[in-house]
């Protein structure tokens, strides 16, 4: 018998540890789930902080902050249902109360019988990220996107930074999931710095592996041709010409493909339908406002929603409605600007916030309060938010702008430490930046952090950003990918990818910097040398080879002779296997690893050489090399490479007709794989 709780569109099933919204599972961390369960079980009553912490953390001493983080995650998840219901109320200084009506069921099995929460099977495929906050005030634009995509195959969303194009595109994608048999796929171009890789990044987002530059487009076309899908290409502005070319070709060749692009400017491709994403509507000045009248403006609704999420008991009332309206007008209804301003309500009243905002704009407009171009409004507001940060927060934000895509806390802490932000303060500082909407925290087993694109570009433009941060970033990822390569040997691949795959954007950023004129070729060569497994596991052959070639070209100018020869072998790793040069290079690399005293890597390349040599007509030489390899690999314990080596030796014995030994070696190989596989169960 399982316990199930129904509230709004949600269903929480205790023993399955599952939260469903409209029948669809919501990703929620273990702790956040426990906090929610504790709150729901006490619905209507006050749950004190002490009670919650005792129940969820069971004897582990944690800071109150941790609870706060999970509660704010829950607010976002519950708020994302968009049903306008209030679920959680903060009781100042004491705890929280779950205030929505809850229906309890003792048996989860009849859950669907009452028809309240129909299970919606997700048949469509895609890669859209989950959204934590609700989209407010863009209903009309959303409806227009749907209507246009029904008749057009290319729709572009244009608009200035911070207006919410990305958010809108993803929301539209989610809305249209059922309309495309092969799903909705998002290619995010913001982290892309190299215009030559536009096709590669789009292909990667679609799960299409490319093998060479010449055939890239043809491969992508043949993969997409039979598909009925919607491709969302987000943040095209910095590579717009390449995107335009790609889009034109794909649409011509793939009859059932539709594309939704987002960009600050239009693609200027024939058959493009441009939708300009407007700022949110704001209340007109000079009219008498009631809260109800003010809520007719989307900007006010957004302000109210985000203020409510703060959990400081904000309500829109006749006393503050004028000030709220004035703030929304001042910020031109730009969603990001509103999200940056609202968190200040933690420390000031609405009226104080209104006055505080006058200052940055007064400087810009010489006090005339005339309208600014939207882009400058946002810029001024980011400036204002930045100036209000403490020094460590500023340093951390600038550090964060060195990263691309999302980043783990561990990586951030390592680099922050080098710019005098103590690593034990990083989590608190991140939380504080997240509360100010300057950083987005992404839920998951391990939280990752990401800067909104407008903020990242701003922070990188600060004079404090420079080579120091870029170098620290590259140095850190040399170490992280060296660890990743070592961990790959003893970790099941799925788990390994969960841990490291998201860092591929950072790998690209580090390589790009290292091989730039301000960079450091030696660091770049190290990065390439340490990231082979990552490229291989992600199937990014084309990009892998590109970096190897670049590293090889740079190695001539440096003194890294040893590294260059290793790379020569690694280059062989992406070449024809039966090429005799491959064996020669592998043996050469083995010699270098021996000089460096790296027995495991020496064994690994000998295994490579040995398997390439081994054939039914040439058993002895291959087997001898494999035995050498085994002796070097074995001391490292149960690794994937050891299992491969034992398997190769089993084959050698089978060729020799020695079945007894072959079986014994094969059994050892299987046992080794089993041991590596057990690592999955122990960490799950």
């Amino acid at each position: 018998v399982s316990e199930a709780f129904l509230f709004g569109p949600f269903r929480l099933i205790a023993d399955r540890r599952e939260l469903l919204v409209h029948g669809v599972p919501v990703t929620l961390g273990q702790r956040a789930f426990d906090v929610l369960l504790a709150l729901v079980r006490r619905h209507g009553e006050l749950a004190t902080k002490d009670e919650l912490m005792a129940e969820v953390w069971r004897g582990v001493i944690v800071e109150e902050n941790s609870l706060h983080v999970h509660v704010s995650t829950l607010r976002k998840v519950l708020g994302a249902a968009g049903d306008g219901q209030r679920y959680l109320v903060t009781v100042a200084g004491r705890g929280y109360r779950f205030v929505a009506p809850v229906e309890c069921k003792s048996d989860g099995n009849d859950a669907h019988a009452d028809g309240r929460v129909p299970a919606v099977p997700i048949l469509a495929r895609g890669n859209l990220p989950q959204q934590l906050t609700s989209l407010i005030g863009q209903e009309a634009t959303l409806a227009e996107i749907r209507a246009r995509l029904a008749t057009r195959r290319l729709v572009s969303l244009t608009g200035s930074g911070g207006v919410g194009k990305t958010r809108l595109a993803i929301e539209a994608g989610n809305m249209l999931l059922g309309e495309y048999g092969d799903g909705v796929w998002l290619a995010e171009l913001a982290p892309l710095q190299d215009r030559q890789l536009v096709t590669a990044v789009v292909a990667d987002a679609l799960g299409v592996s490319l093998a060479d530059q010449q055939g890239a487009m043809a491969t992508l076309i043949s993969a997409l041709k039979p598909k009925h899908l919607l491709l969302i290409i987000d943040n095209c502005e910095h590579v717009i010409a390449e995107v335009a070319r790609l889009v034109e070709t794909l649409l011509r060749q793939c009859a059932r493909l539709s594309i939704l692009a987002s960009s600050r400017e239009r693609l200027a491709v024939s058959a493009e339908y441009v939708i300009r994403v407007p700022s949110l509507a704001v209340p007109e000045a000079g009219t008498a406002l009631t809260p109800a009248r003010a809520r007719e403006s989307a900007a006010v609704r957004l302000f109210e929603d985000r203020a409510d999420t703060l959990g400081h008991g904000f309500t829109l009332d006749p006393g503050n409605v004028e000030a709220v309206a004035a703030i929304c007008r001042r910020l031109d209804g730009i969603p990001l600007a509103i999200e940056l301003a609202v968190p200040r309500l933690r420390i000031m009243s609405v009226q104080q916030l209104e006055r505080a905002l006058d200052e940055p704009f007064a400087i810009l407009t010489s006090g005339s309060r005339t309208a600014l171009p939207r882009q400058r409004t946002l810029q001024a507001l980011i400036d204002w938010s930045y100036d209000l940060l403490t020094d460590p927060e500023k340093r951390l934000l600038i550090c964060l702008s060195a990263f691309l895509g999302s980043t783990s806390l561990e990586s951030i802490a390592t680099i922050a430490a080098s710019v005098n932000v103590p690593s034990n303060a990083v989590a608190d500082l991140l939380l504080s930046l997240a509360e100010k909407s300057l950083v987005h925290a992404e839920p998951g087993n391990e939280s990752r952090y990401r800067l909104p694109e407008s903020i990242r570009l701003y922070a990188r433009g600060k004079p404090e950003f420079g080579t120091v941060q870029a170098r620290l970033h590259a140095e850190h990822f040399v170490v992280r990918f060296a660890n990743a390569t070592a961990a790959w040997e003893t970790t099941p691949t799925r788990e390994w990818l969960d841990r490291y795959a998201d860092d591929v954007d950072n790998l690209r950023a580090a390589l790009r910097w290292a091989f730039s004129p301000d960079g450091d070729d030696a660091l770049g060569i190290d990065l390439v040398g340490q990231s082979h497994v990552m490229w291989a596991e992600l199937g990014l052959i084309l990009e892998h080879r590109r970096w190897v070639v670049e590293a090889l070209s740079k190695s001539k100018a440096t003194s890294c002779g040893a590294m260059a020869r290793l790379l020569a072998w690694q280059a062989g790793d992406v070449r024809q296997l039966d090429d005799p040069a491959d064996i020669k290079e592998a043996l050469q690399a083995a010699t270098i690893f021996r000089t460096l005293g790296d027995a495991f890597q020496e064994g690994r390349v000998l295994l490579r050489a040995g398997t390439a040599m081994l054939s039914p007509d040439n058993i002895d030489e291959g087997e001898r090399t494999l035995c050498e390899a085994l002796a070097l690999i074995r001391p490292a314990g149960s690794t994937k490479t050891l299992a491969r080596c034992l398997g190769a030796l089993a084959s050698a014995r089978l060729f020799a007709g020695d079945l007894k030994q072959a079986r014994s070696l094969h059994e050892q190989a299987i046992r080794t794989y089993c041991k590596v596989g057990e690592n999955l169960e122990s960490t799950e």
Partner: protein
Amino acid sequence: LIPNRLVLYNDLVELPRLARWVEAAMQRDVAPDAAFALALCLEEAVANIIMYGAASNERVEITVELERTVGAVTARIEDDGRRFNPTAARQTSPPTSLVDAKVGELGIHLVRRFASDMQYERRGERNCLMLRFRTTGTTAGSNG
């Protein structure tokens, strides 16, 4: 009854499942030595798909099917990963594209040595590899 179809994911740690399944499936009607060679060939072929063919952030499904007929076992290995043709080995000219390069390591030698037939086909978005092994000591009437 042993099902004649196994689904694996692109992870080397899946290989023990394949080994156990092949052993169980072949137990009744294939001579132990032939069964062992066949198992090793299949494992190498699948390992190559995992290492060089299926590499992708996405989870790739590899299905293995065995069909027993009198005097032979036919294995069909299919996956929805990138194009990967393990039979294209030993091209005399250097490969012009990487698509068909990087072919199987041991797999190709083992299969050439022990299989009586080997065919690769790219069917839609799937790689389909067919291997046929002659067996001795098959029991008449077994149909899988």
